[in-house]
């Protein structure tokens, strides 16, 4: 009796333990004869479910099986998580063959995430190479070796003021006279005078009222726009401290006048609302940001984001291209890929095959989008970006070749011409093609980034007095090692100049 009881105890506990373990076991998958390529891209849209994704993959595979003898697995990742998700996946040995940079090409190269594709280009991606051209490819090179292909799209970012057309009409303001950021002051003041309850200028996002990019002709030397460290200014090949420049001081002073006169939102330095949300609230008149589309298209596409107000756009600066503006969004073959040739071939297709790239962006015709017959596409009747099963429409400027994608209904075909022209005619940096490898000053980078986080938002949004704050800021930057970063940049730049 007792032994039976004991036996049952053992059995029950074994079962309990087993059931816990079995619950965690997964299922194995079948294999196919085609090489598999995992294409990881950042999306601003909803992540589609697995079945939907499979239908799009199947449509792409129908093309790629014949074209390059490979099958593709799409791996959309939300943009905010993209960099860390890719980094973790590659550390963990997960299969990723093609991935992109989001302003961090530099890191991808210095930590060997990106494969050296110099010798593969001619054989597997010749069309892309011809399409993009040596000049732009140089932006993805490091020490003469090629690591990525830049997204082919309107790249030149032009600073603009986006404003409420209804208020401009009501007050009879002349926006055509607004050609620089200084001209903006008068318009904001006029709005403030006429509508005291309104805050004229909204923040674009946290700690950014759009003034950063209105400082003309700055080569950020591989840093992102929000954290410039050592930069090139005035077409000279001397690395300088951005924050010590007269232009920066002037910009902060302008922001300060706006702040003191109530022309800009008070919490701009810390708000977590974006310009679109703020504008939709009806309390704001305008914001300043940089776009790569013509004025009319920019206004139209921003209007489509919702908010219910008629918007206008006016260019208030000129575009400037440095290495970062080209390689910020570039595509790489993973160094861990087992089929790098196929991966590069597929990457090539995203630059050259309209069918492939439109499948990735818009999904399946009929289900996810409809063709309007005039070359443009729309969402099916009664649907929008958030209700169709698959769309990555907002990623259109971040992957492959933008110029072979279907334009959305409402876009002027002339725009493409303007955009191509901007790309070709925009002023370019004297150090175009130079990339900075930050690995020797990583410690200083972390420290300096923290100091910038602490001081820059308040300065550039006008919430503090620049005459007293900038000296403190400069002092702290120096303590954190900014000079070492500048020296390292100068040394690498000199070597690059000597080699070119």
């Amino acid at each position: 009796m007792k032994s039976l009881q004991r036996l049952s105890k053992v059995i029950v506990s074994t079962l309990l333990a087993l059931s816990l373990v079995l619950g965690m076991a997964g299922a194995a998958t079948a294999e196919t004869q085609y090489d598999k390529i995992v294409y990881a891209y950042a999306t601003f849209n909803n992540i589609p479910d697995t079945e939907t994704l499979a239908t799009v993959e199947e449509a792409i595979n129908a093309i790629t099986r014949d074209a390059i003898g490979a099958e593709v697995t799409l791996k959309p990742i939300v943009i905010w998580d993209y960099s860390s998700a890719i980094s973790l996946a590659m550390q963990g040995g997960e299969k990723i063959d093609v991935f992109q940079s989001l302003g961090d090409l530099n890191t991808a190269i210095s930590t060997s995430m990106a494969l050296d594709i110099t010798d593969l280009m001619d054989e597997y991606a010749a069309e892309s190479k011809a399409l993009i051209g040596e000049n732009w490819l140089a932006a993805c090179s490091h020490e003469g070796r090629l690591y990525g292909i830049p997204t082919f799209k309107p790249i030149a970012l032009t600073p603009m003021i986006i404003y409420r057309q209804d208020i401009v009409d009501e007050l009879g303001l002349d926006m055509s006279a607004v050609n620089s950021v200084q001209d903006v002051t008068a318009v904001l003041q006029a709005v403030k005078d006429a509508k005291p309850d309104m805050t004229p200028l909204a923040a674009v996002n946290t700690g950014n009222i759009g003034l950063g990019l209105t400082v003309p002709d700055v080569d950020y030397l591989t840093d992102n726009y929000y954290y410039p460290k050592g930069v090139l200014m005035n077409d000279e090949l001397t690395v300088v401290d951005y924050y010590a420049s007269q232009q920066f001081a002037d910009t902060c002073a302008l922001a300060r006048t706006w702040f003191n006169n109530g022309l800009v939102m008070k919490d701009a330095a810390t708000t977590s609302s974006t310009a679109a949300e703020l504008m939709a609230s009806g309390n704001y008149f305008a914001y300043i940001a940089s776009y790569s589309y013509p004025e009319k298209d920019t206004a139209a596409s921003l209007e489509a984001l919702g908010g219910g107000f008629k918007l206008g756009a006016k260019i208030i600066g000129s575009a400037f291209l440095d290495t970062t503006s080209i390689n910020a969004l570039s595509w790489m073959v993973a160094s861990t890929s087992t089929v790098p040739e196929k991966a590069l071939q597929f990457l090539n297709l995203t630059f050259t095959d309209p069918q492939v790239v439109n499948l990735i962006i818009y999904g399946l015709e009929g289900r996810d989008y409809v063709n309007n017959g005039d070359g443009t596409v729309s969402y099916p009747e009664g649907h929008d970006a958030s209700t169709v099963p698959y769309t990555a429409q907002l990623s259109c400027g971040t992957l492959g070749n933008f110029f072979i994608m279907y334009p959305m209904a409402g876009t002027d075909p002339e725009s493409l011409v303007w955009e191509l022209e901007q790309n070709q005619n925009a002023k370019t940096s004297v150090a175009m093609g130079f990339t900075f490898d930050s690995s020797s000053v990583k410690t200083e980078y972390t420290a300096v980034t923290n100091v910038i986080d602490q001081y820059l938002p308040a300065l550039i949004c006008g919430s503090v007095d620049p005459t007293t704050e900038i000296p403190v800021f400069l002092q702290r930057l120096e303590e954190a090692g900014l000079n070492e970063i500048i020296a390292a940049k100068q040394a690498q730049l000199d070597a690059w100049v000597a080699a070119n």
Partner: protein
Amino acid sequence: MQKRRKKRLAKTGPLLLIAAPGLLYLLINNYLPMFGVFLAFKDFNYIKGIFGSDWNGLENFRFLFRTRDAWIMTRNTLLYNAAFIVIGTVVAIFVAILIYELGKKRRVRLFQSALMLPNLFSWVVIGFIVYAFLNADTGFINNTVLKALHITPISWYSTTGPWPFLLVLVYLWKFTGYLSIVYVASIAGIDKSVYEAAQLDGASKIQQIMRVTVPLLKPTIILMTLMAVGRIFYSDFGLFYQVPQNSGRLFDVTQTIDTYVYRGLMELNDVGMSAAAALYQSVVGFMLVLGANTLVRKLDHENALF
């Protein structure tokens, strides 16, 4: 001897078996990843992998001590946590005693649940609730309270002074209900006859609380405090990042080790340096637990954790 061991195994075997999956989980989830400490001493490279990457000594730790921020963030982390442990415990016990004294009525339970509610909110949500109060343009405090009192509006997110108090207040609002649960349970476990004896001796309600309840809670307090001390080098990231809306002007009073590491490495995505920061926190935390336990053992042997 052998027989006895066999007998013991028969008795504990089934229990061990039930615990096995849990232990296995602990091993896989908490112990295996410890191999990752390698990374803190390596210059990580994706091609060479974890074991193949080059050693670089203490280079990865250097960034933690690079600037005077090192002092500020260590001070903030330690002082805030110390404040949370002391004030949090006192308030939690106070609330627990009140709840217990109110008895087991339905409305008391409802009240207790309501106290628990903030604990279920995420920091992002709490950050916005605070923002609704403190927003410079439209916030409740500036627009209603200060206006009514004829005080000039304060730009809360760029004034460092009030934040140490605000952060403690927000912390208490979120966690008091949760922390008090443990103490309510402990108080409920105290033998009623002790109170009856105290009453017979003429102890007042206050005396019963101070002389009976609090001393009998001592083991729980020590256990909870020891656990908190172990995490004293970690900060609640959401509290220090979301609640002050990541405002640069407030870094002097809101920067903690976690937020510093997060901000510094956001741009670099550096694996080695992240590992170094985590290792530093763990090692110091571990030493603090050992230290605190030794102290407790010296003062009061019975209540030491190990």
